[in-house]
């Protein structure tokens, strides 16, 4: 064995040549303090009578006002924008212009201004064909098994499921007389007792052995998965080449006949505050609670880009706003009482 122990000699002056090309640099965004999602309807609810739609907007209006009043804004005047996500991924009905007209008219009548409208389908695949959902799919990290993961396990999720622990299972049977030994599920990060959650992210319909493009074109993402994309886009955290994975387009005054012709995010209120925000709030009926639990589970496994978060947090700091380190703590929900 040989040991080399260098000692410090006279150090040379500063370097005279520098070259280092950063592949991707996070873009600075215009940011609101809070992005509020105002309500949510399934497409079939939007097709039916106007009364329930108006009622939901009326019920959420006071909570929207409260959110505006309580947004963390440091030394600045609060900047709050509102948005609405259209459920066009699982059901897509042909009368897009009528639905948009109805939605915006009823929200206005209830005193709720919608600033931005986005499509759930765009959270899967953008209008330009780019598979946005895969940005999230490739940025999820499964939880390591206790005392098992030494750094060699590939980080990719291949099953289409994501959990916070280990499912219940039949224990190893050593004695045939005890065939029904059961082992309880386990939440890896539990405090005393477990709440085991297992979320379906997507379902693949392609034949085994199909190429990746084919697999992706036939992959059906779950509602919580697309909602997680939506939350991360609003928070400015999901990026492609340093810019937000979904970008905002101004409304050109005319609604296209097909949902698929809509831009990914449309700015319908010309005076709106910025779409992206430090924090997000979603106000929706309480039947969406299980979905949003799944959304938070997904977001808790999201690998953010350190450069992106450093830029967002740096900006927040300039405004004297302390950002929570945990991404899901930047999101909050208010669930409206009663049915939808």
């Amino acid at each position, binding site marked *: *064995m*040989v*040991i*080399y*122990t*260098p*000692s*410090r*000699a*006279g*150090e*040379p002056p*500063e*370097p005279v*040549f520098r*070259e*280092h*090309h*950063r*592949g*991707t640099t996070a873009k600075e965004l215009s940011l609101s303090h809070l992005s509020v999602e105002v309500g949510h309807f399934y497409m079939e609810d939007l097709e039916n009578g106007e009364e329930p739609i108006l009622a939901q907007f009326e019920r959420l209006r006071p909570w929207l006002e409260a959110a505006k009043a309580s947004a*963390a*804004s*440091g030394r600045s005047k609060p900047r709050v924008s509102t948005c609405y996500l259209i459920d066009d991924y699982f059901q897509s009905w042909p009368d897009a212009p009528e639905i948009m007209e109805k939605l915006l008219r009823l929200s206005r009548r209830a005193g709720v201004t919608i600033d931005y409208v986005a499509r759930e389908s765009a959270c899967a695949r953008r209008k330009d064909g780019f598979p946005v959902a895969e*940005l999230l799919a490739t940025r999820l*990290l499964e*939880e*390591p098994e*206790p*005392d*098992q*993961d*030494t*750094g*060699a*396990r*590939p*980080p990719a999720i291949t099953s289409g499921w994501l959990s*916070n622990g280990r499912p219940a299972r039949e224990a190893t049977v050593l004695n045939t007389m005890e065939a029904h030994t059961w082992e309880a599920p386990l939440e*890896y*990060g539990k405090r005393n007792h477990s709440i085991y959650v297992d979320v379906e992210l997507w379902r693949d319909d392609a034949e085994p052995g199909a190429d990746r493009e084919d697999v992706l074109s036939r992959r059906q993402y779950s509602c919580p998965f697309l909602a997680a994309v939506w939350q991360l886009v609003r928070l400015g955290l999901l*990026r*492609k*080449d340093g810019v937000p*994975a979904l970008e905002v387009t101004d409304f050109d005054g005319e609604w296209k006949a097909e949902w698929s012709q809509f831009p990914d995010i449309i700015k319908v209120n010309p005076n709106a505050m910025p779409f992206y925000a430090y924090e997000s709030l979603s106000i929706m009926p309480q039947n969406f609670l299980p979905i949003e639990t799944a959304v938070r589970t997904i977001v*808790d*496994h*999201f*690998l*953010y*880009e*350190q450069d992106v978060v450093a830029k967002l947090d740096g900006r927040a700091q300039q405004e*004297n*706003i*302390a950002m*929570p*380190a*945990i*991404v899901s*703590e930047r999101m909050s929900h208010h669930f409206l009482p009663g049915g939808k």
Partner: protein
Amino acid sequence: MTRSDASPPHQPQVVLGAVTTGLLNTSEPLPLDAARQALALVPGVRADWRQYPVEQVVSPDLYFGLDCRLSVGSGSQPRIIGTARARAVLTAGHFLQGSARVDVLLGASKRRMPWSHYMARTGVAEAINKAHPADIVTGFLQDRPGKSLLDLGNTGAHVMSLLEEAPQIDKQARLKTQTHKLLWAAHIQDDVELDGHVEAGDDGVFRVQMSTPSELLPDFMEMCEILALHHWLLVALKNAFDRSSRTGLSAERELDAALSYLGHVWNPKAHLPHAMRWFWDALEDAAQLSWEWQTTLTRVRDKVSLLTRKAIEETLLKEVL
């Protein structure tokens, strides 16, 4: 309205790393553009790159979940939970490295926390039992095998394997080489000057141990990657020379491949961070890696000359007869 976090961020006291180095399995070096495509290992993020004096492409960081034990000299093995980070580095279009690292935070928590806690500080693993930084450094560098012990060499090897299926490579490298591992460990102390040493073990593994302030850590890690690459180059060239002495007929082919793949690439100071130059100079004074490289390369070239002269003489002799 303002809000503040309850506790200030902790600084890791120990950082552990492993660099695996090997030849990218392709017949000719990858051009810069192809290398930048192949090393874009995270969709939506491009690879970093440099062109002068030697082309180098660095992938974005990948993260690996950890819940395992650390090897220590004495006492019980501390359990760590969190994530390791690893990147692929391709130098001169042909030399591939998987560089893995984990920042170990001691005394932060006593149980495994919800996963979101670790995802808010990626690249960090928290030890939930008591341990002394010096013990962790020594234990890690000893590299004892163990079922549930941290294995960053495997993390680096996994990152290298991600390039095996890249469409840019033809899987037809002509030079036989083996993958090598270098281990490094840094004790982070903000009130000290950079100081450390390199140890060449009986197993052929270089081990680098350093006390460093945290801001010099990226430079130190880069130096370890440079040392790993040049140690690997030296071993690869010496092995090719040794094989050529044993193989007789195919000697020329061995030497040919070694010269065309390795002959031009020795340049340890090419991307050496400024703050590490004095350390490298001192290391060269003692270990003389560059001298050994030049000597080996001269022997290879001499042998090629001799073989060529012999071949010419044999041809001439045949003509005379």
